[in-house]
């Protein structure tokens, strides 16, 4: 049955949301016009508020409708069919919601609605001008999911998530046969996204993006209503909130990439990553200039520029990642939905509008009478903010290369520019020095800020400088840091920790509320130290030293032995030496849903195209029995874990389980997606992933049968192994079944010699109820299947049928990431610092607002008699 109502309702609500946003924009605009009469303003304001409430209700309705469709598995809808499936665990159906472009726009719209509602309630005096900007943004965003075709013009506005499958793919044959066809199951969620980080990372990131709108709206409102300085107080706490949430969102993404993707790193300089960090850098710069903006006119002007720039950069990055312009350049940009034009209009409206109003008001902005002193806090904060912007500028200048190509194309030339081949080198060349300077400035700036130093008294900085030089010297010696640029960054970061730490100790005794800045700076400095060691000093452990490279032996050792040989091949149960470890690939495991451990794949039989498996034996994990033989249990069908045993020289053994995901339904040809497993120690991570496997779901392909007829104790060669028929013994039971009278069974014992290991293969031959049965034995380690084909009583010879197959192997890579925990520790410290700073500025704002409120109501009381 096709549930058309919910989709139509959703679609209608999107249209209502769009129209109400437009009306609210106009009404709030009217209410914000200061030249109108007070009464008229109030009427418009009331009307605007009602419209906005309609908008909020409509948006919530849209969100509910889409979730209803996904949650109830209405696969007649394209969105549900494409992004979810029946087997998807409940938690991840939430992720299906924003897996696609329409849903992520909707997430953004949802956050804006939440933030807008908070603003209306918390800040009445700024409501009209701020909400004008808000409602306009909402109109643009809802237009992206409008999905309305303007008749006559053949112009499509937006892409709706409420399309039925048959509307999206009308040409597939099944709809010709049955127009009411409903797919039984969906395509499912990309297995990489079936991760808890993917449940919280996108909402956090989009809340970060959405909240950059608040400082922007206040800046525009300030310019519009000529409250040139007053806008900073309500905007600053939100700017800090935004920096906090966006920062945490980006870091969650980085952590997810580290844990789930096999890039081997938390940061890949991918355009999508870059275009989220650049607005953050500029936002952080804006926060700093806003703090001094009420005292210093240059900083005030800069605050306007940077707050506007932050929001425009968010729009620009939206445009880049969603218009398809990145094309080849990015691994994870969205595909083009045909929204490029619309996105460009959105971007240009705000670029032209906000820059226009800034230029228009520029003359009325105050200027500083005197030049700022080199010994003032303003000077140092200003330099820091500038460096942050330059850092962001460098990243965006390179990331925009595909955009330059497009622009050149518009002018009829072909640029053919491509991103730098060595991206890491290119970015590091600048960013390392930028951040060395920025992090030094955090320390110096704090000393000036708290007036610990000033003109003629710089002594305050001597002690921290001395201490940090001593610590740095010690760390450099102990860790063996040799490159000059790393020495510079390390020393700078240690100085920042010491300097900010000194300030922290000083002020925490007075009022810990004010220590957010120092704590945040310490966090960032720790992050830089962690990044430095974990990236620059990553050690590849899996260097391939096996002597198999005969064909290219010369090349292999040439060039100072630096040829790329960072992956090694492991055969099942064959130990291989790697660095100081002895490595053995032991098994393939699967992941049952309700058992807290992976279980060997051989314990169960996987049901194809389903998420169930049949137990082939009792499933006992940690002495607890979960299933009996023959039971059906739920599993994660895509996930396979490769058990790799690491044996340290000390004899300590630990296992890692890197994951490989195989999804036949999606891949069609069994494409694999691999994720690492990490052995975490305090001072380093051992990071392991598998890059190639023999498909665990495929049946082995056996070679043609080869027969060997041998006598007892004969030696013969199977698949290049020496095999010896040691014995043939009589057995009384086979597979736990006791044989009856007149039945007989024998078992051959064939010893197979491998380099360092002996295997015994024992196929059996059974006569039961006058029927002959032959039970072959398979040895996966050797890739052999042996069957006792015939016993000749006359000659005493035995005939074996042997098949061989490709032995199972995996190709893996292991790296060591030293001191990566300092990075994670730094992110925690930074987050705590930002939370403290945000709370402090919100308190300030509320205190001032209430004071103004009381003053205003007193005024009103005074005025009342006159008014009457």
């Amino acid at each position, binding site marked *: 049955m096709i549930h058309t109502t919910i989709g139509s309702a959703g679609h209608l609500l999107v249209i209502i949301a769009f129209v109400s946003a437009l009306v609210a924009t106009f009404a709030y605009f009217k209410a914000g016009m200061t030249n109108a009469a007070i009464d008229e303003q109030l009427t418009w304001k009331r009307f605007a508020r009602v419209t906005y409430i309609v908008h909020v209700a409509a948006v919530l309705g849209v969100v509910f409708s889409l979730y209803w469709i996904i949650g109830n598995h209405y696969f007649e809808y394209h969105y549900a069919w494409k992004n979810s499936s029946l087997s998807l665990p409940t938690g991840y159906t939430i992720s299906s919601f924003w897996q696609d472009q329409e849903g992520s726009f909707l997430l953004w719209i949802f956050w804006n609605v939440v933030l807008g509602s908070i603003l209306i309630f918390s800040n009445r005096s700024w409501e009209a001008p701020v909400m004008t900007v808000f409602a306009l943004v909402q109109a643009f965003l809802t237009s992206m999911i409008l999905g309305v075709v303007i008749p006559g013009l053949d112009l499509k506005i937006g892409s709706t998530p409420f399309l039925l499958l048959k509307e999206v793919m009308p040409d597939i044959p099944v709809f010709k046969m049955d127009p009411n066809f409903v797919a039984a199951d969906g395509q499912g969620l990309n297995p990489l996204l079936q991760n808890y980080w993917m449940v919280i990372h996108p909402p956090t990131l989009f809340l970060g993006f959405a909240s950059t709108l608040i400082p922007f709206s206040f800046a525009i409102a300030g310019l519009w209503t000529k409250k040139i300085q007053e806008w900073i107080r309500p905007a600053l706490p939100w700017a800090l909130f935004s920096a906090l949430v966006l920062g945490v969102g980006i870091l969650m993404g980085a952590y997810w990439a580290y844990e789930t993707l096999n890039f081997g790193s938390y940061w890949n300089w991918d355009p999508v990553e870059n275009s989220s960090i650049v607005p953050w850098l500029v936002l952080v710069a804006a926060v700093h200039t806003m703090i001094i903006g009420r005292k210093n006119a240059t900083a005030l002007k800069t605050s306007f520029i940077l707050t506007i720039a932050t929001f425009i950069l968010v729009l620009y990055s939206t445009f880049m990642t969603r218009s398809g312009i990145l094309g*080849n350049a990015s691994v994870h940009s969205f595909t083009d939905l045909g929204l490029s034009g619309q996105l460009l209009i959105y971007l240009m409206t705000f670029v032209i509008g906000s820059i226009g109003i800034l230029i228009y008001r520029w003359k009325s902005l105050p200027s500083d009478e005197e030049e700022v002193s080199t010994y003032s806090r303003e000077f140092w904060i200003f330099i820091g903010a500038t460096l942050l912007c330059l850092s962001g500028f460098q990243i965006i200048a390179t990331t925009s290369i595909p955009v330059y190509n497009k622009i050149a194309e518009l002018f009829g030339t072909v640029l053919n520019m491509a991103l730098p081949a060595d991206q890491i080198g290119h970015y590091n060349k600048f960013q390392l020095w930028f951040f060395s300077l920025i992090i030094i400035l955090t320390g110096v700036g704090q000393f000036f800020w708290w007036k610990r130093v000033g003109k003629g008294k710089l002594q305050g900085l001597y002690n921290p400088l001395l201490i940090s030089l001593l610590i740095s010297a010690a760390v450099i010696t102990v860790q063996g840091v040799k490159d000059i640029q790393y020495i510079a960054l390390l020393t700078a970061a240690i100085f920042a920790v010491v300097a900010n730490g000194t300030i922290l100790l000083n002020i925490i005794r007075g009022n810990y509320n004010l220590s957010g800045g120092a704590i945040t700076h310490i966090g960032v400095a720790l992050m830089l130290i962690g990044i430095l060691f974990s990236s620059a000093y990553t050690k590849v452990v899996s260097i*391939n030293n096996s002597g198999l490279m005969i064909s290219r032996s010369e090349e292999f050792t040439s060039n100072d032995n630096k040829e*790329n040989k960072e992956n090694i091949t492991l055969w099942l149960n064959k130990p291989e030496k790697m660095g100081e470890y002895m490595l053995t690939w032991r098994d393939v495991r699967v992941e049952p849903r309700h058992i807290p451990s992976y279980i060997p794949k051989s314990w169960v039989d996987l049901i194809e195209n389903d998420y169930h498996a049949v137990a082939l034996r009792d499933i006992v994990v940690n002495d607890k029995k979960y299933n009996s033989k023959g039971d059906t249990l739920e599993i994660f069908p895509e996930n396979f874990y490769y058990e790799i045993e690491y044996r340290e020289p000390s004899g300590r053994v630990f296992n890692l389980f890197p994951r490989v995901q195989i999804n036949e339904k999606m891949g069609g040809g069994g494409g694999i997606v691999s994720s690492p497993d990490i052995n975490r120690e305090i001072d380093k991570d051992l990071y392991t992933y598998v890059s190639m496997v023999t498909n665990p779901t495929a049946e082995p392909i056996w070679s043609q049968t080869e027969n060997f007829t041998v006598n007892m104790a004969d030696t013969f060669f199977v698949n290049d192994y020496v095999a010896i028929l040691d014995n043939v013994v009589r057995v009384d039971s086979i597979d736990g079944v006791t044989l009856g009278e007149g039945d007989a069974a024998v078992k051959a014992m064939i010893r197979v010699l491998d380099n360092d290991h002996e295997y015994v293969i024992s196929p059996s031959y059974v006569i039961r109820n006058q029927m002959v049965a032959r039970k072959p034995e398979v040895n996966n380690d050797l890739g052999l299947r042996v069957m006792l084909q015939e016993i000749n009583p006359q000659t005493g010879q035995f005939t074996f049928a042997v098949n061989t197959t490709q032995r199972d192997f995996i190709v893996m890579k292991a790296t060591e990431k030293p001191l990566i925990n300092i990075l994670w520790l730094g992110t925690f410290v930074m987050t705590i610092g930002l939370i403290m700073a945000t709370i402090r500025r919100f308190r300030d704002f509320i205190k001032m607002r209430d004071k103004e409120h009381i003053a205003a109501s007193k005024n009103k009381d005074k005025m009342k008699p006159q008014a009457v």
Partner: protein
Amino acid sequence: MKKIQIFGLVIIAVAIGIIVSTAGDASTYVDFSKAQEMASSGDNESIHVVGKLKKNTAGQILEMEYQPEVDPNYFTFTLIDNNNVAQKVVYKSTKPQDFDKSEQVVVIGKMQNGTFAAEKILMKCPSKYENGKLETTEATASKS
């Protein structure tokens, strides 16, 4: 001159430095003939070449070799660029996942002794999740 003006000039200088360096570091899209030309003239810059895999009429990939059991870090294939020039490419790392399914391949690297030594491979594969659409994946032979 006022401090703010000096400051402004310094910023402009740094910004110009960034732009110049970006232009200098940026790679280019070329074809194999041009790549060969660059290599013989001693230009050591890494470049991007776009092409398709060599296939027979049945759609099977020809001249592709990866034997992890011998050397997991040696993968070679033949790429045909947009001017129909075929070129052997050597990639000293594991064979990228989904390579066989890629419709279009971008190799980043340079010509060395008659073969193209790729440092990085970008692939356009038919999307796993969307029929009829292509998506990009990348693989790097990282040298850390």
